[in-house]
């Protein structure tokens, strides 16, 4: 039961079955009851006619005429029978139709009462019987008890009911089948967009398509858009990894070549120092490449918000230990409840590198402020992170070079190490910007990272 349509079809079939079953039961009961009532009325009529026809004979006994008005009493095996019994249940008279049949005597009713009963003949034919016990007053004033009994075979009635049932079932089955058919056709139409998504994803897998098309019903546009985001982020991620690996491998080759050259000429002056230089270079390359952003703006589907205040507190506590001797005075201004929608590691990288540089270069004061972007809500909003210190600041030309040309390792701002390059990369991967200026009040470097709000798939 993995498919939606088979689930729907099965549930609808079960519902139809229950509904039609109940309907059939109700109709069938109503029909049978109405039919039986009609039969009883007819039997009652026959009984009254019998009573009217009964006359005392010459011997002072009650008798019925040789021929009755109802022809079915005269035809043998007609299915309509009549009997006259005395008080001891002995048959005094029996209609011609009952010739050769033994109608069960059954229970005699109380005097003056009607009694309907269901009995059956010896051959199993079901009968509906009506008995009436009367006290007959003869002309001479003699009172005698009699039981008048009429019986009708239910064969034809049962056949009628069965026919009715057959028709009922037939028609309802036809209706149910038609409904199911119509429903499944409707479903096919409804599920078509899903099948389209499936086909398109297959096409993406086969490389025939870059993204899902936009032509989906309103209910599915969100899914399609998120799917596209996911595809984009996956593609970007694998591009990023490939690019990083590529860069890493290539940039390591230069120092490796230099080291080999140095080894071939071990007598060179300052061999150890120059060799170490190459190792440091390789180390820097690896460090830079490995500290690249973990997430990007396209990953916002899978990211949990980072509790900015807690992470900054952790960072500042750690840096207080590391810069214990310098003992910088931290001024932390984090908006209460502020969250960063991104990777925790990336956030720590942003704030950690900036704070570390500030601690390194400050005289005594370091300030970090984190506020939501203007106009954004505090939750999952964009973020403006500013770190300032009272150190010498970053020379304008170095700052410009970093911001404009795009950072390469050998161009990294002296003294600020690879930290700023990493910060810039991460900011950019979240669609943000990095700006460097002189702090107006502290006098040192003031570095601002602005990350725009994450575009929600619902509000896009």
């Amino acid at each position, binding site marked *: 039961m993995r498919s939606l349509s088979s689930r729907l079809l099965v549930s609808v079939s079960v519902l139809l079955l229950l509904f039609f079953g109940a309907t059939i039961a109700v109709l069938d009961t109503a029909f049978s009851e109405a039919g039986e009532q009609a039969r009883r009325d007819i039997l009652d009529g026959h009984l009254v006619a019998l009573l009217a026809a009964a006359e005392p004979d010459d011997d002072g006994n009650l008798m019925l005429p040789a021929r009755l008005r109802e022809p079915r009493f005269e035809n043998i095996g007609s299915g309509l029978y009549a009997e006259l019994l005395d008080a001891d249940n002995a048959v005094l008279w029996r209609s011609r139709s009952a010739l050769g049949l033994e109608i069960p005597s059954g229970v005699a009713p109380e005097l003056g009462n009607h009694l309907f009963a269901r009995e059956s003949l010896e051959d199993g034919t079901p009968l509906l019987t009506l008995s009436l016990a009367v006290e007959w007053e003869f002309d001479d004033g003699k009172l005698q008890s009699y039981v008048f009994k009429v019986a009708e075979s239910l064969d034809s009635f049962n056949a009628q009911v069965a026919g009715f049932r057959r028709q009922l079932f037939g028609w309802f089955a036809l209706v149910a089948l038609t409904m199911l058919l119509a429903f499944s056709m409707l479903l096919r139409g409804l599920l078509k967009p899903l099948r389209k998504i499936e086909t398109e994803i297959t096409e993406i897998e086969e490389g025939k398509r870059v993204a899902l098309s936009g032509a989906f019903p309103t209910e599915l546009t969100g899914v399609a858009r998120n799917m596209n985001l996911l595809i984009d982020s996956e593609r970007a991620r694998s591009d990023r990894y490939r690019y990083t690996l590529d860069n890493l491998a290539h940039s390591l080759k230069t120092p490796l070549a230099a080291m080999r050259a140095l080894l071939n000429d071990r007598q060179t002056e300052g061999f150890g120092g120059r060799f170490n230089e190459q190792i440091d270079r390789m180390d820097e390359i690896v460090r830079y490449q490995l*500290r690249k952003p973990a997430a990007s703006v396209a990953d916002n589907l899978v990211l949990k918000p980072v509790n900015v205040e807690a992470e900054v507190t952790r960072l500042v506590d*750690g840096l207080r230990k590391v810069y214990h001797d310098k003992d910088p005075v931290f001024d932390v201004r984090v908006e209460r409840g502020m969250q960063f929608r991104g990777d925790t590691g990336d956030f*720590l990288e942003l704030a950690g590198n900036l704070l570390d540089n500030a601690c390194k270069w400050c005289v005594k004061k370091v300030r970090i402020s984190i506020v939501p972007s203007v106009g954004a809500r505090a939750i999952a909003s964009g973020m403006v992170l500013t770190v300032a210190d009272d150190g010498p600041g970053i020379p304008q030309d170095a700052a410009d070079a970093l911001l404009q040309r795009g950072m390469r390792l050998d161009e990294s701002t002296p003294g600020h190490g690879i930290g700023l390059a990493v910060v810039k990369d991460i900011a950019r991967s979240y669609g943000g910007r990095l700006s460097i200026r002189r702090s107006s009040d502290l006098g040192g470097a003031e570095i601002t990272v602005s990350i725009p709000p994450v575009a929600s798939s619902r509000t896009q």
Partner: protein
Amino acid sequence: MRLLVIEDDATLRESLARKLGESGFAVEQAADGKEGLYFALEYPIDLAIIDLGLPEVSGLEIIRQVREQGRSYPILILTARDRWEDKVDGLSAGADDYVVKPFHFEEVSARVNALLRRSGGWASSVLIAGPVSLDMSRQELTVNEGAIDLTSFEYKIIEYLMVRAGQVISKAELTDRLYDQDFERDSNVIEVFIGRLRKKMDPENTIKPIETLRGRGYRFALERNQSG
């Protein structure tokens, strides 16, 4: 001073231990987290250097347990992972500083000295108390501006006492912290070295830098000029 180095890479650990030993430290080595944790909790340690990526018990776990058991000696972490996430995790667990691999030995040595002096309450690597000045980075002792020539063992003792200036240090503690494990332990040796130090630093017996407290131990008695 007794240092503990927990590092699973043998080359790195042995080189580190050898160079620290040359710098005058007694060094314990542990190659995995389990052994390291045992040493860290059971041995008299003045500072631990702990690699974060260890087999058996992680470096972070060792740091946490060491702090939970109330050991307050400084911890320097070595990490191959340069991301701030790892550094912050280590520092929040209770480490005091970090060095990122690969490192120059001088960097580790500088951090170790800084942490040790910090744990003694000194803010700078030159400890000054009255006329006595000890430069930990250069391992030089001067009294009234005059350099004092010390053997490495004498230096170890005066450094240990001076870093903890004002505290009483028992003979047993000195023996524990200054000898390597396999060195013969004889407390008389300490007395001899203290006597020599006094003679070298204070030949006229006027400044009395080292005080003997009978039955309890020794104390560097001069007032600190600065403290952290």
